[in-house]
């Protein structure tokens, strides 16, 4: 049993590297994400209710819903946490004294190992699949409904939209370059079930990916990417998104060198947990929306 959901939401940081990195992407999804933290504050903001007794009732019901394993909320949270925890070796400790000042990337390079393109491709695709599966768990639709997911992507807002924006920027554009869609597609086509088996992140989330065997799971991963690439490409085009635009914003608090983009990607990888952070916020929101309707 993990921590109570109200504690997880209460303990979401108001300011850390994850929050700074996401705020740097505000220009892509203006005003969508304001880092809502705190369980009661989330209830008040989501429902517009301020009466303490009503807030308590909604909170109690949300806690009951979360703790009922049959309802899928815990699986969704586990996915969001697990996909992020795989690579947070250099975490808060190394950066504890860096809040408010520019982080010199050079100083961390000896501690960073850029990922090979294949590992980065798998990372990107697994994060995407986690989003599909967590979406289905939270919203109560069958776990392999990629179609339903893609339809609802157009309706994504708030922290969910920010999560997708960060996925495109931090896990696709920066590490894989502007042609990440074609590159990922090509890599996926040449990926064998064995390659997937050898990937540490995959082995952690494998049990919740649809498909009864690794080849079938690989097919599901390919299908997921194929269905979402249109949305990703549209997002890039709509925003006239380039690597320079994103590094320009990150450059406000990280000393970035354009020749070291793989290190920047690795740095973001190990110092942020944006999937877990915004995933917890999405989950809290859905729980509260349901609780407020059921009480």
């Amino acid at each position, binding site marked *: 049993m993990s921590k*109570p959901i109200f504690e997880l939401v209460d303990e979401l940081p108001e300011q850390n590297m994850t929050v700074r990195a996401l705020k740097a992407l505000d220009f892509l999804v203006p005003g969508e994400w304001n880092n809502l933290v705190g369980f009661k504050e989330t209830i008040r903001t989501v429902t*517009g*209710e301020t*009466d303490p007794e009503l807030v308590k009732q909604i909170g109690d019901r949300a*806690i*009951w819903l979360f703790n009922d394993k049959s*309802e899928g909320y815990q699986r969704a949270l586990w996915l969001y946490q697990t996909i992020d925890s795989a690579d947070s070796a250099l975490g808060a400790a190394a950066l504890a004294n860096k809040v408010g000042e520019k982080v010199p990337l050079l100083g961390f390079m000896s501690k960073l190992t850029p990922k090979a393109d294949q590992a980065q491709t798998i990372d990107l695709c697994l994060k995407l699949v986690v989003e599909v599966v967590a979406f289905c768990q939270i919203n*109560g639709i069958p776990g392999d409904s990629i179609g339903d997911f893609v339809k609802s992507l157009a309706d994504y807002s708030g922290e969910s939209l920010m999560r997708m924006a960060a996925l495109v920027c931090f896990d696709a554009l920066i590490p894989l370059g502007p042609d990440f869609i074609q590159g990922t597609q090509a890599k996926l086509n040449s990926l064998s079930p064995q390659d997937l088996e050898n990937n540490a992140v995959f082995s952690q989330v494998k049990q919740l990916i649809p498909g009864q065997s690794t080849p079938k799971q690989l097919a599901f991963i390919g299908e997921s990417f194929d269905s979402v690439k249109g949305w990703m490409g549209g997002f890039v085009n709509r925003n006239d998104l380039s690597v320079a635009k994103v590094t320009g914003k990150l450059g406000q608090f990280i000393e970035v060198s354009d020749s070291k983009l793989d290190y920047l990607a690795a740095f973001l990888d190990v110092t942020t947990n944006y999937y877990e952070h915004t995933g917890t916020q999405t989950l809290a929101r859905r729980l509260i929306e349901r609780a*407020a*309707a059921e009480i």
Partner: protein
Amino acid sequence: MMPRTWFTSFCLAVLLFLTSCTAAPPSEFDQAQQDSTQSGAAAVADTAVSGGSLNEYFPQPAEDYDLVYAQEKTGFAQAKLKQAGTEVAVLSIADIRNNPDAAQKYADSAETLAGYPLAAQGNTGTGVLVADRFQVKVQSRAESFTEGDRQDWLEQFNLDGLAALDSP
């Protein structure tokens, strides 16, 4: 001897203080956490209808309104009501077998809508209880969406059809 005793007491006091600081402070949600993690505790009833069976009783929005289905869980369905792309309200049907306490506010209310008990809740919610079984609710998400709007949208649900879904 005396100073050493003091020193020991002082150290113990500091230790006690420090350890008490590390534990999370009690929360008003501790009780719900404890109750809902007892063995056998469940947030939903085995006999609740499936969420998918509730969708057909939602209103059919016209003109510039859109209904975007959000959650479909055991005994529960929820959709967002959007007007020109902006979310103005949340509509839901909940099988109160999941949460029987929800019926109390309707028992306490003298108002009705289309023959079903009606109750307002908080500043943003209004609901009806259909066949003592299904709580149909509209919650405002935009300030412009008033209590009157909520009642209008409640009337657009197929409440009588929903009543017929009630089974033992």
